[in-house]
């Protein structure tokens, strides 16, 4: 009957987290052998797969190539089985084109593209299961895949969403929280320099609350960056152990 209570009086969210707590993050790098870089990312029930090819020569028309830096090509897609309702999702619909564009903008800000003039880097991300925060899962997965491919970046790109309920900012929204009304802000951060690669918000929010919301999102991104860092280090260790043998 009644809508969902996003934040209880005791300070617990729907799934039992507190306002600033992230969902459980799990990640693996180098999941595919054939690609130059790949990674699998879980943020709670949101699961994303990212694959990177390149840098390589610009495919297709030459006119697309840039003389001073690499072109980043992003493609975002969702698996048919990724949502509660099974649905065929054609490529190039408005939502995924928008998402592809956002990803492209994010990584153009992070990848040192000027090191590879006249070349191209392809990033393919697929959402395998969607439970809120698709964009941030994609960015985080793609970051790991880029690291796996050995493409130089300014920093990790960490992305996270933040919402607003009962005067409190909630970090890392799940699907129920995203759709339960209220605001959702996605933010991609380069944590070390604290510079923002991309910030996006559709809903209305009072200006006074924007700072708290950004603050919460940035905190969450920093938390994520630690996790990503540990994932990368662990992966390196595994790889070095393997190569030693």
């Amino acid at each position, binding site marked *: *009957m*009644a*809508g*969902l*209570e*996003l934040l*209880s*009086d*005791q300070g*617990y969210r*729907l*799934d*039992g*987290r507190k306002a600033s*707590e992230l*969902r*459980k993050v799990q990640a693996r790098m180098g999941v595919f052998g054939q690609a130059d870089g790949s990674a699998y990312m879980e943020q*709670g*029930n949101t699961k994303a797969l990212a694959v990177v090819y390149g840098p390589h020569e610009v495919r297709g028309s030459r006119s697309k190539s840039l003389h001073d830096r690499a072109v980043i090509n992003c493609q975002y897609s969702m698996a048919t089985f990724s949502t*509660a*309702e099974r649905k065929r999702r054609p490529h190039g619909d408005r939502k995924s084109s928008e998402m592809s564009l956002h990803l492209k903008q994010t990584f153009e800000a992070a990848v040192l593209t000027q090191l590879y003039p006249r070349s191209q880097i392809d990033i393919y991300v697929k959402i395998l299961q969607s*439970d809120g925060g698709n964009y941030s899962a994609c960015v985080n997965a793609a970051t790991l895949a880029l690291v796996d491919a050995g493409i130089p970046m300014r920093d990790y790109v960490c992305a996270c969403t933040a919402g607003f309920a*009962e*005067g409190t900012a909630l970090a890392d929204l*799940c699907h*129920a929280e995203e759709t*339960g*009304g209220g605001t959702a802000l996605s933010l991609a951060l380069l944590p070390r320099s604290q510079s923002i690669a991309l910030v996006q918000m559709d809903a209305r929010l009072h200006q006074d609350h924007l700072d708290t919301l950004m603050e919460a999102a940035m905190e969450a991104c920093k938390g994520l960056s630690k996790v990503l860092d540990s994932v990368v280090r662990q992966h390196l260790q595994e790889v070095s152990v393997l190569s030693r043998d």
Partner: protein
Amino acid sequence: MLKSKTFVKKTRSGGVLKIVREHYLRDDIWCGSEVCTECKDDSPVLQRDAFIQSRLCTYPHYLIPDTNVVLHQIDILEDPVMRNVVILQTVLQEVRHRSAPVYKRIKDAIHEKEKHFYTFTNEHHRETFVEREQGESANDRNDRAIRVAALWYNQHLRKAPCAGELRVVLLTNDQANKEKATEDGLLAYRCTARRFPSAQSPWQGVNHGRQISLLNEITGGRVLFPEHLPLSRIQTGIKNGTFLQGTFRANRDNYLEATVFVHGEGEDGTEVLLQGLQNLNRAVHQDIVAVELFPRERWAAPSAAVLEDDHANDEDAEEEEAEKVPCVVRKKTSMLKPTGRVVGIIKRNWRPFCGMLTQSQIKEATRHLFTPADRHIPRIRIETRQASALVGHRIIVAIDGWPRNSRYPNGHFVRNLGGAGDKETETEVLLLEHDVPHQPFSKAVLSFLPRMPWAITEEDLKVRADLRHLCVCSVDPPGCTDIDDALHCRELDNGNLEVGVHIADVSHFIRPGNALDQEAANRGTTVYLCGKRIDMVPELLSSDLCSLRSNVDRLAFSCVWEMNRNAEIIRTHFTKSVINSKASLTYAEAQMRIDDATMNDDITNSLRGLNALAKILKGRRIEKGALTLSSPEVRFHMDSETHDPIDLQTKELKDTNSMVEEFMLLANISVAQKIYEEFSECALLRKHPAPPLSNYDILVKAAKSRDLEIHTDSAKALADSLNAAVLGGFPYFNTLLRILATRCMMQAIYFCSGMDSDFRHYGLASPIYTHFTSPIRRYSDIIVHRLLAVAINADGTYPDLMDKHKQSTLCNNLNYRHKMAQYAQRASVAFHTQLFFKNKGILNEEGFILFVRKNAIIILIAKFGLEGTVFFKNKGKPGPKLSFDSEGPSLTVEDQHTFHMFDKVKVTVTLDASNIQHQKIRMALVEPIAGVSVAWPEPAAKKPKLDR
């Protein structure tokens, strides 16, 4: 930090979707007790020496109520005696789901510091979370979760070093649950008031009985209403007489009562009374329903009480309502009316309703109740997410359906009209509510307007009488732009007088059957609101081409009489004409000219002649028994810029008002005779039926209380006795009586002469009457013009004009529109009166008692023409002692003072804005006794506390 473990919860919505949600379990949720050393709670809520005086538990203990205890015995939990209670999250969620008001109350209790209520988030605690087992119902799982949590508490507290005898006690109403809990080694008790003797409250004993009936209701799927019969069975039922078909009319003051007006043969219809929600069975005002009559011993009398459905957004407030129904006063058998119940609905008459949203008490809720402005209509439940944006606005909602298990019909949001209290919004609301078509005219309609610049053509002049040389003038209220009548009077050579009434020839411009005509026929009448006019015909016609303004040539339909000096008609002549009005006067200007002896121009002389004749005519009319009635009418002086009312004034009547009126009546009667002569089957006439004698009861009784007698056997007798009813030293008494007499009257209606046999106009004491003189603002006059034009061979006829059935349906529409226009007008005046008093603040005024009711008196303040009710009883609170005598009628308050009709009292007038939708003028007595009446019938609702 947290240890998180991912669980998967599966819920199904619509049986299709599998929703997967994460569910984190934590081990940093504290028990909240002062005793505990293990939990790192900074400010524990539950006290060390938790002690509720109770016969069963003599040791300190914490209480854990289960869901049903909270739902049905919230009164007990709210008692200050109850302290140190653990409310489990499971319980809270279930309560929230089931009843919003109880949820709100328990939340308030939790927020109260002194009560030491603690919410334990057991669903996310690692040790108290339970998963639903296979084959286990959700309710059973919740019960088990509650038991597990209680058990955990017990064990947890035992570990504390200085817990002593501290235990937790589970409160439950469910026998099975109690047994299972005891098996687990828990202390479980059924919650009854007896257990807590220290809590001496009125709920002792009451709740126990109630709780059991409630349990039954909640376990069984709740069905509130009996099923509607299928149409086929209704039809056979109506044919064999077991059911009656009629129009459902809800009672606007009592939502548990309604009447069904059963259309009988001919004129006489009967009314069937319906009482109680079950018997009303989801019928909505104006629906066509089938009713079944109860046997005579179950007949009831309508209750005079005022009941407003103002329960919280709630499903279980219903029990109390159900209890209210049977307490129908079984009075004298003469008061009993046929009573029955609705068995089925033949035709729904739902329309979009204006009103306001009552936001649900749960903040995140998407379902809210909508309260229509029209009090005949029940509240409607709608689903919206933008509730917070719609609160305080007037919105339109349409009903979608009314399922059997729902207390309220379901509907959807249609449109937002704007902020409540805004003048534009409120005007829009009252137009919509009274079904007044007020959209701008469509292109199709406008395309039938004459091209501008328009001039009278040669052909027009050929077929019309040229009366431009006559000294015609018009007399109207100030600011009138749609002048539809003008007059002239001149002396003829033979010493007789020629009197002409010239009416704007609207039928020349509006040709039958085109879009313009159809639109006008649909609108029926122009609606005058305070500061706004909703035209029946486009402005070009109403204010320009048809308006008989001074010094321009205009087309007219003239009715010219030759009269002698005794105002006896010698000859009547109707003609289409061209006139040129010499002056547009106001009533005051015309009066000045007549009174000013120095003026001797043509216009003034003509006015004097008219005035003299009018006086004779009026005298003759009153001789015949025409009634002079009175109604307190007021005019507002509007601020020219803000259009806010700045002053109120009762309408003054001058001689010239009645002069114009007299000739209009004469013209109407002459035309009525003419068209009835020519078309005895299809003349459009107007009649005013004589009211049934019982209508006069109140008037006769009232007069008798002042030792006066009113005769009501004929109009003449009534008029005479009204004239004679004068009290010395009480000049306003006669007006009051006339106001009362007006309320006894029937509505005058249009009808088609071929469909009826009684033509009399009771109020005007005329055997035949019609409307001819205001074609710009009434469609009936346009039809009469057409009929008359055909009768004098000035215009052609068309089939619909001669079809009495078509005429009759047209009449029905016109009657409806007129009625609605009148209501809209009144509503507009009421709204502006409110605006006026809003700016005035609190006023003390003298007034007269107009009616005496069971729990209230109705007071008229003559100065403002304002009527208001003084209540003596406050809802839920014992009021002063009242004794009502229906034969007086009089009302005695506290045995000290008896109020009779027409008593002079002094009241304070305030604007009650507590219900923004129905802002009302409130009155409270100051003299002769102050303090007994209730200024506000209910105390302003407590501001709901914010949830956090």
